């Protein structure tokens, strides 16, 4: 029996530190974020340039992640500025047949029409969880796994 399970059970048994209402409300609201029929894009390793850190971290600078599915490559770069999350990226390979790119958080969603070379950017998002969804005509949407970013 893991220690954290014993501790969790003890608190539940004593009614101590119950789950806050706002957390349960967010859990219920997550249902609306499902994309039935959508295709999940899995993360893949991004080649590390010579001299760069192998873990991909750049001491607070932008981080690049890559996801692939259904013939699409979704590069996602994140940074936090003034406490808000900025998400930029590129859909490939060119020419892209993506009608729109949607950056979703549990609280809001922003759509962009990608440039001809597949680039997109969204700023001013609350830090926390987000996912990028590529919408294509006549094809199921392709979405990245949910990514967690905090300052």
């Amino acid at each position, binding site marked *: *029996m*893991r*220690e*954290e*399970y*014993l*501790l*969790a*059970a*003890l*608190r*539940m*048994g*004593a*009614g*101590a*530190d*119950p*789950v*806050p209402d*706002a*957390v*349960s409300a*967010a*859990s*219920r609201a*997550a*249902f609306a*974020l*499902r994309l*039935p029929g959508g295709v*999940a894009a*899995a*993360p893949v390793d991004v080649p590390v340039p010579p001299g760069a850190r192998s*873990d991909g*971290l750049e001491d607070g600078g932008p*981080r690049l*992640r890559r996801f692939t599915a259904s013939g699409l490559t979704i590069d996602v770069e994140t940074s936090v500025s003034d406490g808000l999350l900025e998400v930029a990226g590129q859909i490939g390979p060119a020419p892209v047949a993506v009608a729109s790119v949607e950056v979703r958080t*549990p609280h809001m969603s922003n759509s962009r029409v990608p440039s001809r070379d597949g680039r997109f950017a969204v700023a001013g998002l609350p830090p*926390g*969880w987000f*996912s990028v969804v590529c919408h294509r005509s006549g094809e199921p949407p392709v*979405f990245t*796994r*949910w*990514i*967690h*970013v*905090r300052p």
Partner: protein
Amino acid sequence: MHSDNTLARLDRAAWEDLVARFDGRMWAVARAFGLSAADAADAVQGAWLRLVESADAIRDPDRVGAWLVTTTRNEAARLSRRSRGEVVADIEDLDGPGGATPDPAAEVVDADFGRHVWRRLNALGEPCRSLLRLYVLNPDARYSQIAIRLDLPIGSIGPTRARCMSRLRALVADGEAP
């Protein structure tokens, strides 16, 4: 490819039933990692978002509760490591969506089992009984506060807590033995 043997057809009522049944357990497990309320909320939300992205791939809907608690534990462990300054991935390392293996032990985390563990805890001697009571009932208490309450050296709180939890685990395991 969808089949009836996945959670792909989960409707809102079933989702809300899952929340009602497991949200409290998920929160308690996240907080048991010592996470702040904000980080624990992120861990719980992360587990639900993993279900959002993985519902088509979960092959054993009967064990979704254990899957949710296990996934919360994994997200909480990742956030806990990051709060200690460790470099961690921002996406849990799964073997694809739905790849988290439900931990059977996660299924017993509930208030009934908690009351059983309390009876075991109350059988411990001092200082374990008082220390664990303080630690359990005051999730945000610092070791310095517990040290003052129990009149113990602050440096002894961590090792004593670990020793007492180990004894409690043994007592619970003995109680479960046939």
